[in-house]
């Protein structure tokens, strides 16, 4: 051991008959961001909660920073930070009270704890909200105080469970900046997300998990290569021309084009972006009027479709367990 910040073998957890985590093997190197990507109910939160010693695995082994999560739970707890839906702060207390509470619990003296709380609030742009109850914070501020709360003692490793779910783009960018800042200072970050975009932006390596199992692992480039370049979406002026357009696109792109729910729209997966221009030109030449077209990045759905053959369906209740 010692080579990896996190290493798991055959990690399992069931809730009744639901196999939330059904044998997860991870090897996360120290430093950088490791992304765990998957839909709701894939087992992301359950995995993180086991790694953060909040949940006892049914089977398998997990070591975090070289310590076993069951046998050396307290050693793990003193070295990691956790931020997520279930590891929040006390909404009745003010920002500064929350951080001071944690600082005192972690062994700071009253004076140094107050100083630490103030410094953290300043660094996270929350100085003005310091004396306001957290329940009055906006979504973005709330997420920032959650993360600040995990940094009272600078952790060697931080777990971020869906840190940007439900945030507006501006707040999301702020969280991303924080993550990058932590990585620059040498903290290892394990991040779960439902968004391919987020994993792409932040993570050096990504594990895609579904039904409690890792179904693919690699850098974002590797994963994308396995999925293809994305898809072309086209909207026509006249819906009755759709059949004709389908034929033209399929001819040029060499993949079947699929009609969308919108009667005037269709889309096709593409492997080679250069053919898109030719496909559009061909539509024009055939007298088919295109009112809109868009080249989409592969979505999580497409990753899933490619990797698993099924869509990333929504089963929210499992992850909440």
């Amino acid at each position, binding site marked *: 051991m010692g080579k990896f910040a996190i290493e798991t073998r055959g990690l399992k957890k069931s809730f009744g008959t639901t196999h939330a985590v059904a044998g997860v093997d991870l090897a996360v190197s120290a430093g950088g961001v490791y992304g765990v990507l998957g839909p709701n109910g894939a087992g992301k939160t359950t995995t993180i909660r086991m790694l953060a010693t909040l949940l006892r695995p049914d089977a398998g082994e997990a070591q975090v920073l070289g310590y076993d999560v069951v046998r050396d739970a307290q050693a793990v707890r003193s070295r990691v930070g956790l931020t997520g839906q279930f590891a*929040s702060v006390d909404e009745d207390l003010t920002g500064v009270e929350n951080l001071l*509470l944690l600082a*005192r*619990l972690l062994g700071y003296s009253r004076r140094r704890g107050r100083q*630490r709380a103030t410094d953290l609030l300043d660094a996270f742009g929350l100085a*003005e909200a310091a004396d306001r109850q957290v329940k009055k914070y906006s979504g973005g501020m709330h997420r920032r105080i959650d993360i600040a709360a995990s940094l*009272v*003692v*600078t952790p060697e490793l931080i777990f971020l469970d869906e840190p940007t779910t439900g945030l507006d783009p501006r707040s999301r960018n702020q969280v991303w900046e924080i993550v990058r800042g*932590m990585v620059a200072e040498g903290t290892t970050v394990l991040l779960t997300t439902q968004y391919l975009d987020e994993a792409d932006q932040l993570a050096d390596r990504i594990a895609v998990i579904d039904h409690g199992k890792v179904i693919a692992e690699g850098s974002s480039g590797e994963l994308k290569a396995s999925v293809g370049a994305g898809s072309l979406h086209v909207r026509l002026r006249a819906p009755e021309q759709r059949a004709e357009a389908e034929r033209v696109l399929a001819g040029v792109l060499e993949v079947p084009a699929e009609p969308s729910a919108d009667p005037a729209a269709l889309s096709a997966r593409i492997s080679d972006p250069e053919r898109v221009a030719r496909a559009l030109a061909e539509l024009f030449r055939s007298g088919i009027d295109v009112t809109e077209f868009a080249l989409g990045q592969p979505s999580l759905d497409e990753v899933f479709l490619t990797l698993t053959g099924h869509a990333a369906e929504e089963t929210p209740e499992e992850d909440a367990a």
Partner: protein
Amino acid sequence: MNATTAEQASAPVTEDALRSVLLAGERPSSPGPVLTSLTFGWRALLKIKHVPEQLVDVTMFPIMFTLMFTYLFGGALAGSTQEYLQFLLPGILVQANVMITMNTGITLNTDIQKGVFDRFRSLPVWRPSPLVGALLGDLVRYSIGSAIVITLGLVLGFRPEGGAVGVVLSVVLLLVFSFCLSWLWTMLSLILRTPNSVAGVSMMVMFPLTFVSNIFVDPKTMPGWMQAVVEVNPITHLATVVRGLMHGSVPAGEIGWVLVSSVLLVAVFGPITMVLYRNKK
């Protein structure tokens, strides 16, 4: 609205500030169980400061009960309300206190729902300290409740023959018992899913526990089987002790009973609570 304006006004997260704060983080040695429990107790007090509404139960319950039962039963049971008050007030003090211990479970369950629970569980502190701390904070609430009952009693004409010493001693014993009984509610709050169900089940336990006792009437007129129940109910012994101390006698045997049942409550429900706490999903 407030939050939005403040957010716009607040400085963005700067890389430099973040860097310095990450580098500055020290790693102090872990504090001991007493300090962490007291710190969690401080949190409970802060919550009272921010949400004073939660004192409604410790103020309203006791006032309501004292007035209601004194004037409802006084004439019929003891010939006069003054007479009855001397008997009832120590009992009401017990009932009010025991009733407001229920809030412990409801508060803990709310913590679990709200998400601060996992944060506490992920800290490298003595494991029972969040629970012990919450119960220490509750002692403040119980003290407030007791003070209200006793003050109201004195105003209505309650005259404790045991004097201030008797009153204080009986309250101390009552706090000890309440602290121990609270572990039953912490256990329930880790088993049941919502604060509402915790409240419901607690009520179901609480009503027979407080009414089938000697708080309101002398058990002599009850049927034999019920007297038997009253006799084993720890609340009966607690009420006897509080009554005795307040009126100047020291029922040593009964005090022993109360202490033994207090220890038993913690010995049984404490470990169960901690197992549930450790394995909480």
